[in-house]
């Protein structure tokens, strides 16, 4: 395969899901089964091409970057700059080739799973259409070679998530969650947009390579490293939104309102992965300060989300917070400089997290049917307290779920162990290099927490006594179309897939070879550790990191068994002892409440204030001006009655003017050294003048033509016929007056200027 074919093939991979969307959104009703087979077939075709691309790229063109550009907008010969165009293009490097496969594996298996899970849905065909555009948007992010298309696809991902989270829009909570996801993401996107503006203003291009080349050549925004850091952090703001990092993570748990396979798609391969992918893409241009910022945001996210996950009882909520926490891990990994590890964890996590969500979907599906069977519409099918003992009834779901849980906890033989361990080693190295020890401490602590809450979930769901024996009896394993994806994801959670070797303790393999840490382009004074220093340091800490991480993970697991399986520690008693802390965690650190009270209510208050201001003050002045003019020229006045701002302002001003006029008159007439009688006399004169003046203003001095306005209103009310109205209007003089005024104006101006 030559590079051109590779590019055409990746373009085809990009456009296939779009075609699926377009076909299904318009014609799904015309197809048998509403076209689910078509959408799924297209997804698997795209998977096949993605695999072909990745294999070719990683074998035949391992160290090359293949890209092509297309002129899209031509600004012409711009004054002061010269000819300028905007180029759009796609790029296949190892990063995008691997990501392409990750996205398509998850997407195609989610398509397959959805055939079973979404059976009989009210908008079944449209659901598959939306899966198509979601996949397309994500592939756009993966394949682009410039910030412009990145931003475009970025926003399209926002749209797709809006459509899918709000799939069951009859539910208020679903439409709220969809809206929240879009708007919270927009906040991050605006930051990213400003970051892109900084880069474009400096380099007049959106394409990655020229921008990086220019930075390498020492050309940095506004000639200052601070601006380069700002650009990096602002672009990262996009990732904060999409990858649900603190403080914009609040949309993601609510996004569970979407169908469960969609959660799998959002949490594993699309959307949240986009943010991490963006950081990976822009890694080379991030300064040490920007990376430090990113590391802290990631660590904070990992910690906050892990603590919340412990206290949740909804199976999907637990998984949601575990995603947030793991994303924090990846971002922290990239922030500390563990480039390969961050992206490695993104890829491995995609597989087992997609599996976890589809597994939970399988459980919810079964629970839903069992509850439906029992005519129980009150019990929550997603609450793990209503489950228990499902292990025997759903063997495939259970065993696969267990594998994913081992992977996410970082137990050897799984892919998660390798990638997590790399990140942990990275944080230790970072601590060594910079002295910021808090990052590795948080990282290891969260590793233990993760193992604990994930095993809590598994034990409560699959082990122990069932919450209800009759319900358990009605539970069945899900159909093949749902279990096959689970098995595939479980297989992809095994370590050997990711290394190509049989040493379960070493991440070295095809993946790490394909994704070496890129050399930074940032000026040396602002850059983080160089590749040599980094490799040296992380090599030293690798052994301790592995031992420590194993200790943390096993402690978490054992603790989970002690508390929830053997019940040696009474969980309820612990909760009762730590009531305030538990409430705090159950309520997710009160982030939603905080944002509601400040940002949302603040904005709403401002909107109401501005509306009042606009209607009363701005428009009041306009109407006030009209009313004085009417009052003065027509001798009519109802200023007091109106009571508007404008009329009051008018009366204030005219009052002041009148008083001033009276004072001027009186003081000019009065002698320099008045007697008391004179003072009294002239004082009265001044007051009288002011009063008279104010009265004149108030009642108006004219009476110019009362009948015109009244007559007009009456006429319009009486005659509906067009000709009548127009001719009569002209007769009553409004139009004539207007024309006369214009003519007069022309003449006056002519004379004046001449």
């Amino acid at each position: 395969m030559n590079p051109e074919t590779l590019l055409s093939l990746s373009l085809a991979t990009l456009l296939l899901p779009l075609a699926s969307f377009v076909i299904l959104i318009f014609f799904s009703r015309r197809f048998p089964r509403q076209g689910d087979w078509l959408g799924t077939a297209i997804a698997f075709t795209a998977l096949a091409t993605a695999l072909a691309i990745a294999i070719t790229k990683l074998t035949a063109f391992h160290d090359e970057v293949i890209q092509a550009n297309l002129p899209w907008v031509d600004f012409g010969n711009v004054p002061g700059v010269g000819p300028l165009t905007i180029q759009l293009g796609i790029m296949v490097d190892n990063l995008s080739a691997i990501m392409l496969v990750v996205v398509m594996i998850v997407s195609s298996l989610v398509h397959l799973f959805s055939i079973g899970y979404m059976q009989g849905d009210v908008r079944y065909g449209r659901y598959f259409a939306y899966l198509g555009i979601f996949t397309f948007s994500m592939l756009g992010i993966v394949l682009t070679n410039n910030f412009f298309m990145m931003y475009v696809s970025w926003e399209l991902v926002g749209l797709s998530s809006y459509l899918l989270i709000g799939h069951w829009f009859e539910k208020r909570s679903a439409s709220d969650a969809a809206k929240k996801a879009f708007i919270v993401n927009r906040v991050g996107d605006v930051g990213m947009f400003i970051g892109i503006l900084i880069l474009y203003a400096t380099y007049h291009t959106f394409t990655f390579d020229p921008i990086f080349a220019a930075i390498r050549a020492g050309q940095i925004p506004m000639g200052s490293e601070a601006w380069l850091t700002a650009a990096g952090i602002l672009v990262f703001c996009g990732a904060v939104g999409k990858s649900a990092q603190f403080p914009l993570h609040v949309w993601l748990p609510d996004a569970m309102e979407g169908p469960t396979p969609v959660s799998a798609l959002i949490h594993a391969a699309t959307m949240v992965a986009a943010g991490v992918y963006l950081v990976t893409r822009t890694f080379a241009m991030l300064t040490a300060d920007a990376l430090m910022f990113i590391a802290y945001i990631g660590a904070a996210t990992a910690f906050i989300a892990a603590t919340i996950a412990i206290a949740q009882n909804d199976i999907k909520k637990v998984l949601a917070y575990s995603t947030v926490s793991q994303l924090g891990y990846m971002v922290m990994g990239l922030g500390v400089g563990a480039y390969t590890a961050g992206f490695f964890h993104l890829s491995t996590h995609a597989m087992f997290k997609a599996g976890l969500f589809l597994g939970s979907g399988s459980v919810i599906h079964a629970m839903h049917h069992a509850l439906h069977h029992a005519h129980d519409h009150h019990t929550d099918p997603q609450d793990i307290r209503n489950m228990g003992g499902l292990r025997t009834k759903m063997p495939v779901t259970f065993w696969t779920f267990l594998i994913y849980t081992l992977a996410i906890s970082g137990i050897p033989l799984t892919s998660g162990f390798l990638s997590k361990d790399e990140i942990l080693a990275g944080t230790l190295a970072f601590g060594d290099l910079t002295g910021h020890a808090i990052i590795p401490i948080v990282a290891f602590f969260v590793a233990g927490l993760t193992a604990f809450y994930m095993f809590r979930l598994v034990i409560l769901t699959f082990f122990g006594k069932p919450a209800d024996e009759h319900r358990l009896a009605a539970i069945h394993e899900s159909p093949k179309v749902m279990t096959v994806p689970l098995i595939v994801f479980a297989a992809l959670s095994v370590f050997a897939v990711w290394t190509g070797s049989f040493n379960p303790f070493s991440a070295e393999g095809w993946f790490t070879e394909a994704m070496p840490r890129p050399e930074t382009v940032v000026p040396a004074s602002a850059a983080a550790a160089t590749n040599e220093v980094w490799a040296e340091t992380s090599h030293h800490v690798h052994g301790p990191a592995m031992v420590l991480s194993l200790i943390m993970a096993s402690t978490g697991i054992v603790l989970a068994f002690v508390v929830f399986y053997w019940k040696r520690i009474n969980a309820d008693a612990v909760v009762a002892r730590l009531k305030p802390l538990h409430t705090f965690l159950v309520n997710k650190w009160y982030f939603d409440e905080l944002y509601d009270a400040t940002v949302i209510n603040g904005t709403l208050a401002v909107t109401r204030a501005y509306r009042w201001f606009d209607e009363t003050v701005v428009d009041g002045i306009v109407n006030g001006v009209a009313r004085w003019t009417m009052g003065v020229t027509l001798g009519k006045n109802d200023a007091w009655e109106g009571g508007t701002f404008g009329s009051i302002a008018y009366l204030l001003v005219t009052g002041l003017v009148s008083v001033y006029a009276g004072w001027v008159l009186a003081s000019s007439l009065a002698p320099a050294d008045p007697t008391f009688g004179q003072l009294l006399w002239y004082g009265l004169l001044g007051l009288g003048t002011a009063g008279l003046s104010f009265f004149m203003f108030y009642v108006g001095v004219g009476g110019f033509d009362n009948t015109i306005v009244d007559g007009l209103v009456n006429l319009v009310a009486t005659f509906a016929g067009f000709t009548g109205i127009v001719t009569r209007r002209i007769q009553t003089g409004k139009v004539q007056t207007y024309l006369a005024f214009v003519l007069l104006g022309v003449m006056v101006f002519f004379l004046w200027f001449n």
Partner: protein
Amino acid sequence: MAFFGIGVLTWLTFLPILGMLLVLVLPKRSDETIKWTALAVTGLQVVLAIMVYFNFRPDLAGINDAESMQFVERAVWIDIPSTSWVGRIQIEYFLGIDGLSFPMVLLTALISFIAVIASWKIDKALKGYMAMLLLLDTGMMGVFVALDFFLFYVFWEVMLLPMYFLIGIWGGPRREYAAIKFFLYTLLGSVLMLLAMIALYFSVTVLDPSTGDRLHTFNMLAMMDPANFVEGSLLAGAGTAFRQLAYLGLFIGFAIKVPIFPFHTWLPDAHVEAPTAISVILAGVLLKMGTYGILRICYPMFPEIAQAWVVPLAILAFINIVYGALCAMAQQDFKKLIAYSSVSHMGIVLLGMAAMNTQGMMGAVFQMFNHGTITAMLFLIVGVIYDRAHTRDLNAFGGLALTMPKYTGVMTVAFFAALGLPGLSGFISEAFSFLGAFQNEQIRIITIASTLGIVLTAAYMLWTLQRVFLGQKNEKWGAMPDIDGRELAALVPLGIIVLALGLYPSLLLSSMSASMNQLIEIVRAAGPAVAMLP
């Protein structure tokens, strides 16, 4: 390009007048014939506009260069021999288009056609209505093709009267108030414009080739050349107080039309009262006349002052964007909300104009076009619902997505276009405006502050969408029929244009770049170079 010896711009401009005469001689009861006549005339106008599109040369700049103006028609219109007190007055019939007016010509033809479709259900005095609509069409088109200031002013005033009657007679309950407010406000603006125009007239002379005398002129292109200003005349020189004053007069005149804060309060009233089709024209075309005027007249005739006033303009843009969005969010009335969203979106045009560079300028003019199509869609969408439910209260609906799926589909495109979703045209113009404005160091902070509008727009648009379309089915509107063929005929072409320009904006942008660069060149040549990065 000419037909029967008459140039295409004349046809474009006066075809509606022909249509109006035709409508007026038709018998009063023949409503169907009147409608089809109006539709045929505006349809023909669209065909002519498409022909112009395919014959337009994107490499010619225009602006201040008569040679590179396209489809030019030029003749002496009024010639008053020398009088004792003002000298000889010569007013030209001078039409032509360049990359600045070309998108507006297309927009006017398109929106007028859509407006006729949207007017199909008018039953009160249809004949008068259509006659007024067609007259309005001529006025709008004339403004965009006129290159003689006097002619420009005449068209500007021609547009005013039919608009007044269309709101004042066919409007809602408070139509009288809204119409007179619109009328007086615009009149105030045109008085200021008149003042500046006559000042310009007496300051500028050109050589009359037939007599060899220097002659005062209303020719706009002549007014853009500093060499034509008579030594010692009122507006001669650079940056003088009188020039500032004239600029201010013109600016306020145009600002009222845009509308720029604080002159915007006529807009919500006019929109709420106007019938759907008139709202479509008002938001789709009329608002653009304000920004067009600033770009066509203020910028090239007073370039040094335009430059000096960049920061105030950007501040106004910021107020329009953010204040408009916040006001929109507080509305209960669907139509009023869209009206305020227009204020916000026109702010983006202003921001692009304040950028004083090619990206910003192209973004601004492209945003003028895109706002025209997108807001037209939004007002049509409000019209659809109002025709059925006779209410525009946003809280009265809910769940319409279940009963009106086609309507919801079209609405989704329009709403997401309005909130600047990539892939739809609004995004491109918004992004370019910001891109340009950010490059201008003077207004960089204001630009960053204005991005707040991006979030606010998403918030109020999605909130509206949720209130009207999502949620449980509202039994009260259960029997509401979905959008019909005629309504789709008005909306779908606009939707296709929005999508096409979103995917490949060069369809329109390519014809603008030469003119925009020329305009920037004029402004930059006038004074200290606008701050731009290398």
